């Protein structure tokens, strides 16, 4: 009997295992997003530090992260962290690598937002006796962040699509599961088709989420 080109019954058989992989992918995405959005903000604020050395150091770190491949950074963390006594799961290591990498990019987005706040706003804050910290919290960040949320959202979607790289450091995420299934049955079409469909579905949903956020911001 000829094998069908696309075997539906095999597809249904592997789908649950791929969904398990998808859960890992989503976990990595969420963790990395939290790291990227928070660390990115810290880096952006650090670049505005009045301590020249701090601002310079942050600029160098951001430039370094952005100029080296994510895969190299992931390998580096995966092999170097344990040797300095930091033992994390592959998923944690991967999420940190992904998060730090995207924090560098997001810090540039935040920076654009911060620079869009006019100098007069800082001066208004000085005239009212605000501390530097209070100026960031009350005046600058509430004006700097809303306009850049769409750009940040686009990086979240991009970050999500880079999670297959984590398979290189043994994270059993969606892509890794598909490879395992393929090598087991020598059928790759169904597994990778499912991977594509799942990524498409989640990307579409999160892109729609970003757009809704954008619209709500535009209205307020």
């Amino acid at each position, binding site marked *: 009997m000829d094998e069908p080109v696309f075997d539906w019954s095999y597809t249904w058989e592997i789908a649950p295992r791929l969904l398990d992989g998808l859960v890992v992918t989503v976990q990595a995405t969420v963790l990395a997003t939290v790291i990227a959005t928070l660390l990115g903000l810290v880096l952006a604020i650090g670049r505005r530090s009045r301590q020249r050395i701090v601002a310079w150091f942050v600029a160098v770190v951001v430039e370094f992260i952005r100029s080296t491949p994510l895969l190299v950074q992931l390998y580096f963390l995966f092999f170097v962290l344990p040797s300095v006594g930091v033992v994390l799961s592959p998923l944690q290591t991967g999420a940190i690598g992904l998060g730090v990498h995207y924090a560098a990019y997001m810090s540039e987005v935040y920076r654009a937002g911060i620079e869009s706040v006019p100098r*007069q*706003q800082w*001066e*208004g804050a*000085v*005239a*009212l*006796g*605000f*501390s530097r910290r*209070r100026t960031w919290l*009350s*005046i600058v960040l*509430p*004006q700097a962040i809303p306009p850049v949320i769409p750009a940040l959202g686009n990086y979240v979607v991009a970050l999500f699509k880079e999670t297959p790289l984590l398979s290189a450091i043994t994270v059993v995420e969606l892509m890794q599961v598909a490879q395992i299934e393929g090598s087991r049955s020598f059928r790759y079409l169904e597994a990778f088709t499912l991977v594509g469909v799942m990524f498409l579905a989640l990307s579409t949903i999160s892109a729609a989420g970003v757009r809704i956020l954008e619209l709500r911001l535009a209205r307020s």
Partner: protein
Amino acid sequence: MPDRELLIRMRGVVKRFGDHTVLDQLDLDVPANEKLALIGPSGSGKSTILRVLMTLEAIDAGIVEIQGERDLAKVRSHVGMVFQQFNLFPHMTVLRNVTEAPIHVLKEDAAQARARAMDLLRMVGLEDRAEARPAQLSGGQQQRVAIARALAMRPRIMLFDEVTSALDPELVGEVLGVMRRLASEGNMTMLIVTHQMDFAREIADRIVFLHEGRILEHGPPSRILDAPEHERTRRFVKALRDR
């Protein structure tokens, strides 16, 4: 001057922007409660004096003291400033613009700060716009909010930096009206950079004429505006009057 407390003391103050000397060995004393108008051509250093007092500019040489304190950051909360461009916080309501500093800097109780803010908004005639955003107000209204916001910090000194220059002519009066009331209440020291000579004459105890970063002459409004000693002052006053 009678022996009133000397609130502001500037000696030999120099401020340069690149090659340009904006304040050139400037001396200025301001006793408590004085209403001082600073006039002079653009670039003469009037606004820079206010910006130095507000710690928005660092000086290159000289001494500046407020209430005898040379570290101006320490006495910053005794000084309020109103800007040409209002500098209201656009993401906050009018009310929060006024309460934010008392709550976070003076650590006032929120309900108390709101009550006082409403009193101040009433004083500037805007209590019914408390929940509006700055962008929904006219320039004159925004500037009145900015005055209320500065007053909420209970400053002893108020600095007004060309506060009507960005306003449409028909909105100037409402802002000057608020300043007039403030001046009449007495226990406020006011430094006013202005091109409104009639207003300066009416409100100021003393007018300082600045030229190229120095005080060319100073004295009561009648003398500076009607019988200036220097030709430069005479020309400036005449030019503004003929405008």
